[in-house]
């Protein structure tokens, strides 16, 4: 419905102000906002997490985030989108990713928000390292789909 220019797509290193982002996508022409707030869990595979560190291939991550937002605008009758991921060190309970979608009808907002977080987790080059009392590991993650190889490359 609305151009992506009104959306907020960002990587940040400070705490994510979720209320401000919700306010940014809120508009009297809409009827609802669906938001996903992902935050740092206190355990991973049964081990107590101390904190996390996120790193990103920043320019490419922003490219992929913008692609996702463009896709949901194309596929769903939504109005505004906020999609922000935090990088650096995050403590337990802190928001790592926040996605808010406003729409005239809630079904579109639910579908778009869910597609956005599912696709972000599969395709945006961001990596999470989990720190425990006795060491640290890179989270398992998912291999993004890649284009098929050409027989005769240019």
């Amino acid at each position, binding site marked *: 419905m609305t151009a992506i220019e009104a959306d907020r797509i960002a990587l940040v290193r400070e705490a994510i102000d979720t209320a401000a982002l919700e306010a940014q996508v809120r508009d009297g022409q809409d009827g609802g906002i669906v938001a996903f707030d992902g935050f740092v869990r206190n355990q991973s595979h049964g081990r107590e997490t101390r904190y996390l560190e996120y790193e*990103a291939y920043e320019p490419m991550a922003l490219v992929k985030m913008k692609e996702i937002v463009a896709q949901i605008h194309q596929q769903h009758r939504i109005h505004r989108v906020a999609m922000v991921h935090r990088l650096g060190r995050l403590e337990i309970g802190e928001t790592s990713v926040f996605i808010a979608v406003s729409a005239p009808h809630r079904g579109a907002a639910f579908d778009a928000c869910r597609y956005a*977080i599912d696709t972000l987790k*599969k395709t945006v*080059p961001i990596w999470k390292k989990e720190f425990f009392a006795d060491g640290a590991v*890179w989270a398992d993650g*998912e*291999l*993004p789909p890649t284009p098929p190889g050409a027989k005769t490359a240019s």
Partner: protein
Amino acid sequence: MSGYNFCMTQVANSVRVKVLFFGRLRELIGVAEEEGELPEGSTLAQVFERYAGRFPKLTGFRASMVVSRNQEFAAWDTRVAAGDEIAFLPPVSGG
């Protein structure tokens, strides 16, 4: 096309590219980013092999990573061009 391997051995017509490593790959080899010369027409697979030769720890990781060229995921048989930004990316885990 069949001449490229021959060219590589001569390092003829090399192109300057930027190569990036992230996450566990970055940690594994201790390199986050470097500029380098590659034989013109090298595939991304060949670029990886060069790094696996220099950092044997990388060997075996190719199946569990993807590669990007100029900030787009790319097939391993994509050929590099001058000024390319190539990145080797382990499984992503944002969110």
